[in-house]
C-alpha cells in the first residue's frame, strides 16, 4: 500500500531551526533517575508540533528544558544555533493550570508579560488591550481570575502569551483542565488564529496526552515513550483538509497512534508498517510478537481503567446489539477517543470484547457478562480475571499458598518494579486492587498495606 515515508516524518537537517534540542538528557533526584534520554528535535518556522505521550514520558520536562526553565543534565538546546542559557527569551507558555495571578485583574495579568520589556505604560496598555481583543476577552479587562470560568481563564493565559509576540508559543496541556465543549471551542479558535496567521508566532509546540487534540492541530506529532522518556516515533500530521472529525484518514491516524501508544514495548516503526499493510491485529495482541514482549515483562500493562467504566461500557455495548463503532461510542458517551480506547483495551484483556476494524465487538462471554445480575456478573469477571490477568492470578496464588493468606502490598509493588517504573508499578498495583476487590478475590487495607484473601473465595476453592 502506501509508503512508510508518507507517515513517518523525516528528521529535517536544517540549519535555520528556530529551536533545536541535541541529545538532551535529564536526570532527577539524588539517585539520578533518568526522565529523558537522548532526545533530539528541531523546530522550524511555520510548524505546529505536538509532543504526545503517556504521563511520565518526560514531554512536559522537555518543554521546560526548551523554555529554559530547567537545565538539561546532558546535551544542549540551541536557539537559532546558539546555546540557550536561562529562560528562553523567544518563547511564551500557556499552562495547563492557566497560572494566572489571582490578585491581578485580566488586564494586569496580560500586561505581566510586557513588564520586563522596555515599553512605556501607554504602549503596554495598548498592546494588552489589543491582545485581549484578539482572544475575545473584551469587557473582561477589570475582572479577576476567580470571577472567570475555566475557558475564560485560559483565554487570559493565551492573551498573556500572545501579547509578548513570542517567536515560539509553548502550550503545556492547554485544554485538559477544560470541559469538552469549552476545549473544543477554544481549540478551534486557536486553530483559526494559527492558520490565518493572525498571530505573529512562527511556530507552536504543544504537549498533550490527547490523541484527538494532537491530530486536530499538529503538522508533526512526536510520540513519546516512558521509562525513561524518549521519542518513539515522529509522525506527519494530516493536511488541514483531512483533519475534520469525519475524515477516514483522521480515524486511521488516531487508531495508529493509539496502537503505538498501547504497545509501549514494541517497535513503533513496525506497528506503523503493519498498519500500512492493513494487517490490523487485536489491540492487546496475544500473538507471537506479543509473546516475546510479555516474556521479558511477565505482566501485561493494565490500562488505568475503573471497574465502573469497564462494566458500564460492556453493558452499554451489550444493550445496543453487541457491537459499536469507536467513533460513535466516543460521540454518544461524550468520551475522548484515547480514554475510550483504554476501556476497550481493558475489555479486550479480560476477553469481553475485541476491536475489529474500528468496531468494538463483544465476545459471547462479554455478552453474557452484559446480561447478568450482579452476582453472576462478578463470577464471570472473577473467572476471566484469573484466567487472563497475570498479575491478579499471581496475587491470588500467593495469597492461597501463604499460611496467613495475607500479602504485603510493598512486596507486590517491588516485584512489579522489575517490569515497570516506580510510579507505573504503583498504578498497576492500584488497578489490580480495584479489579481484585470487585471480583471479591481479596480485600485490601490501605493503611496497613495488606492484602487478604477473600473468605468466600477461599471457601469456594476448598
Amino acid at each position: 500500500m502506501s509508503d512508510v515515508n508518507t507517515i513517518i516524518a523525516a528528521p529535517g537537517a536544517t540549519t535555520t531551526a528556530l529551536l533545536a534540542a541535541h541529545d538532551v538528557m535529564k536526570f532527577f533526584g539524588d539517585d539520578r533517575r533518568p526522565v529523558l534520554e537522548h532526545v533530539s528535535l528541531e523546530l522550524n518556522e511555520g510548524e505546529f508540533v505536538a509532543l504526545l505521550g503517556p504521563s511520565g514520558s518526560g514531554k512536559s520536562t522537555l518543554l521546560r528544558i526548551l523554555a529554559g526553565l530547567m537545565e538539561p543534565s546532558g546535551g544542549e538546546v540551541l536557539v537559532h544555533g546558539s546555546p540557550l542559557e536561562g529562560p528562553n527569551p523567544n518563547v511564551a507558555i500557556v499552562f495547563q493550570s492557566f497560572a494566572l495571578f489571582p490578585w491581578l485583574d485580566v488586564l494586569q495579568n496580560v500586561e505581566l508579560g510586557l513588564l520586563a520589556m522596555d515599553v512605556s505604560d501607554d504602549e503596554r496598555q495598548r498592546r494588552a488591550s489589543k491582545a485581549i481583543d484578539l482572544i475575545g476577552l473584551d469587557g473582561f479587562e477589570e475582572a479577576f481570575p476567580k470571577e472567570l470560568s475555566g475557558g475564560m481563564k485560559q483565554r487570559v493565559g493565551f492573551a498573556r502569551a500572545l501579547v509578548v509576540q513570542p517567536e515560539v508559543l509553548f502550550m503545556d496541556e492547554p485544554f485538559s483542565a477544560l470541559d469538552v465543549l469549552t476545549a473544543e471551542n477554544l481549540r478551534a479558535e486557536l486553530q483559526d488564529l494559527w492558520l490565518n496567521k493572525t498571530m505573529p508566532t512562527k511556530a507552536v509546540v504543544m504537549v498533550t496526552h490527547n490523541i484527538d487534540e494532537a491530530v486536530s492541530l499538529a503538522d508533526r506529532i512526536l510520540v513519546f515513550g516512558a521509562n525513561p522518556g524518549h521519542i518513539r516515533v515522529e509522525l506527519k500530521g494530516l493536511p488541514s483538509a483531512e483533519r475534520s472529525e469525519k475524515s477516514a484518514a483522521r480515524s486511521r491516524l488516531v487508531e495508529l497512534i493509539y496502537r503505538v501508544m498501547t504497545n509501549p514495548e514494541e517497535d513503533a516503526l513496525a506497528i506503523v508498517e503493519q498498519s500500512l499493510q492493513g494487517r490490523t491485529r487485536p489491540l492487546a495482541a496475544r500473538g507471537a510478537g506479543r509473546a516475546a514482549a510479555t516474556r521479558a515483562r511477565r505482566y501485561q500493562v493494565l490500562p488505568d481503567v475503573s471497574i465502573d467504566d469497564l462494566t458500564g461500557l460492556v453493558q452499554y455495548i451489550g444493550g445496543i446489539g453487541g457491537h459499536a463503532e469507536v467513533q460513535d461510542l466516543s460521540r454518544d458517551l461524550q468520551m475522548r477517543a484515547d480514554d475510550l480506547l483504554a476501556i476497550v483495551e481493558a475489555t479486550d484483556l479480560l476477553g469481553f470484547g475485541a476491536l475489529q476494524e474500528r468496531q468494538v465487538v463483544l465476545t459471547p462471554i462479554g455478552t453474557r457478562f452484559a446480561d447478568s445480575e450482579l452476582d453472576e456478573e462478578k463470577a464471570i469477571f472473577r473467572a476471566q480475571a484469573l484466567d487472563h490477568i497475570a498479575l491478579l492470578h499471581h496475587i491470588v496464588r500467593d495469597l492461597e499458598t501463604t499460611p496467613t493468606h495475607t500479602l504485603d502490598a510493598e512486596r507486590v509493588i517491588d516485584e512489579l518494579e522489575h517490569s515497570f517504573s516506580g510510579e507505573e508499578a504503583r498504578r498497576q498495583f492500584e488497578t489490580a486492587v480495584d479489579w481484585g476487590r470487585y471480583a471479591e478475590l481479596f480485600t485490601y487495607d490501605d493503611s496497613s498495606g495488606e492484602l487478604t484473601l477473600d473468605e468466600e473465595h477461599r471457601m469456594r476453592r476448598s
Partner: protein
Amino acid sequence: MAQPIIPVRAPSSSGEPSEPPRMPPTPRWVDALMLCVVAAVAYGIMRAAAEWRAPLSPNVRVSLSARLLPYYAGLSTLRMTIAYVLSLAFSVTYARIAAGSRAAERLMLPLLDILQSVPILSFMPGVVLGLAALFPGRTLGLEIAAIILIFTSQAWNLAFSFHQSLLTIPRELNEAAAVYRLGFWRRFTRLELPFGAISLIANSMMSWAGGWFFLMASEQFTLGSNNFRLPGLGSYLASAADAGDTHALVLGVATLVFVIVMLDQLFWRPLVAWSDRFKSEQSGGEAPQSRLLDALRGSAMLESLSARVARPLARTLDRKLGSAGSFEPRPRAHRNELRARVVRWGSMALLVALAIWGTVATVGALAGMTGGDWRLVGMSAAATFLRTTIALVLAAAWTIPVGVAIGMNPRWARHAQPLVQITASVPATAVFPVLLLALLALPGGLNIAAVALMLLGTQWYLLFNVIAGATAIPYDLRLVAASYRITGWRRWKTLILPAIFPYLVTGMITATGGSWNASIVSEYVTFAGRKQSTIGLGALIAQAAERSDFRLLLAGTLVMAGIVSATNRLGWRRLYALAETRYRLD
C-alpha cells in the same frame, strides 16, 4: 498607622484607581480621624524618643496613677510595633533566603525550629547585658533589649509561615514569572508577597498575641541585683502586682483589653478584609468585611496621597529594581562561577567553624555542671512535663465539648465567637497576678496554680481550632448521622472526633509549645513583693536568668528546646501527617 504589607500593584489605566470607587461618598470624618491618628503617632514618637535618651537608672519607679495609663499604653504599643516591623522584615528576608537555596534551607529551617523552642527569657541576660554595654548610661540600650525580647516572641512563626507560602506557590505560577522574566523585585512584589499575604497576616495577629503575652517579661527584668524597668503597660501591671494594688491591676488590664480591641478593630480587621483579594480561589464563605476599610477606600485624602506618593514611588521602585536579578541570557562566565564557588565554600567553612566553636563553647560551659545540677535540671524538666501534660488534657477536656457545641451551632457561634475572641485576646500573663491571689491560697500553692496559668495561656489555641473544625463538618455528614440515628458517644466516635482531628492536632501543637514557654512565667512569679516559685524547668530558667547563672540557663534552655523539638518531631508531626492523609475532608 504603618501598613506592613503593601504589594505594589501594576499601575493601571493612566493612574486611575483600578477598583470602581465604593458607594458611600467620602465621609469627611475619615480624613479628620486620619489626621488625628498621624498627629498622635508623631507626638507619641517624640515623647518616646525623649524617654529613650533619658539617663539609665537601675530602679525606675513606675507610677500607678491612672492618668499615666494612656501614655504607658502608647509606649508599649510603640515597642510592639517596632518589634513587629522588625520581625516582619526579618521573617520575610529569612524565609526568602531559605526558600532560595536548598543548602541554605537545610541549615536555616532546623535553626528556626530550635530558635522557636527557646523560651524568650533565655535570651534575656545576654541581650540585656550586651546592649547595656553598648549604650552605657542610657535607656536606649534597655529599650532595644525590650524590643529584641518582644521580637523573639513574634518572629519565628512569621518566618515559618512565609517560608511555607513560598514553598506552596504553584509551580506553574513560578514558571510564568520566569518565562515573563519578572526579575527578583517584581517576582517578590507581584507573586511571593501577595501569595503569602493571607497567612502572613493571620500569623501577624498570632505574633501580636504572643508579644502581649510576654509584655510584662519584656518591660521589667531582674539581673543579679539590678531591677530594670521600662515605663510601659507591662511594667505598670507588674508594679501593680508587686504593690498588691488590685485597683491599679484591674485598671491596667482594662486598658490592655481596650488597646487590643482597638487595634483589632482599627487595624487587623481592615487588613484582613483588604487581604481578601489575595485569596486564590473563590471560597464559599462570606468575604470578611470592615466598615473602616470601606471608609478608607472612599477617603479623598488617602486617594490623593496614594496617587501622588505611593503609586509613583511604587512605579519608580518597579522601574529601578524591576530588571534587577532577572535572568537575562548571557554568555557563560567562568570566572563568576569560580567566584561564586569560592564564596559558597568560604561561607560554608565559616559556618562549620562557627558551629564547632559553638559546640566546644557549650560543652565547655556545661562541663562545670555537677551531678546535682543535672539532677535538678532533670527533675525540673519532669515536673514541667507533667504540668504541661495536665494542662493540655484539662484544656482538651473542656474545649472539645464547648468548641464543638459552638462550632456546630451557627447561632451560638455568632454570639459566642466575638466574646471568645476578646477573652482570648487578654494575655494570660496580665491576669496571672489577679488569679494568683485566689490560687495561692489553695493547697498545693504555685504547684497547682502554675498548671492553671499554663491552661489559661494555651487553652484558646485549642478552642479556636476545635470551633473551626466543628464548623467545617459538612452538613451532609451531619444529616446522614442524624438520619441513621447515630447519637451520643457513637456520634462522637464516628463523626465529630475524626472530623475535628486535624484541627485538634494543629491546636495541640501550638498549645504544647505555648505551655512550655508559659512555664517560665508561671512557675516563678513575684507577687506583692514576695517571690513564689515551684520546682520546674521554667522556674529554673527564670531564676538562672535572674542570677545570670549562664551555665544553668544554658543547660535549662537546651533541655527545654530539646524536649519541645522532640515532642514536635516524634509526636505531633506524625499525628499531623496522619491527619493530613487519613482524616481529610475533601
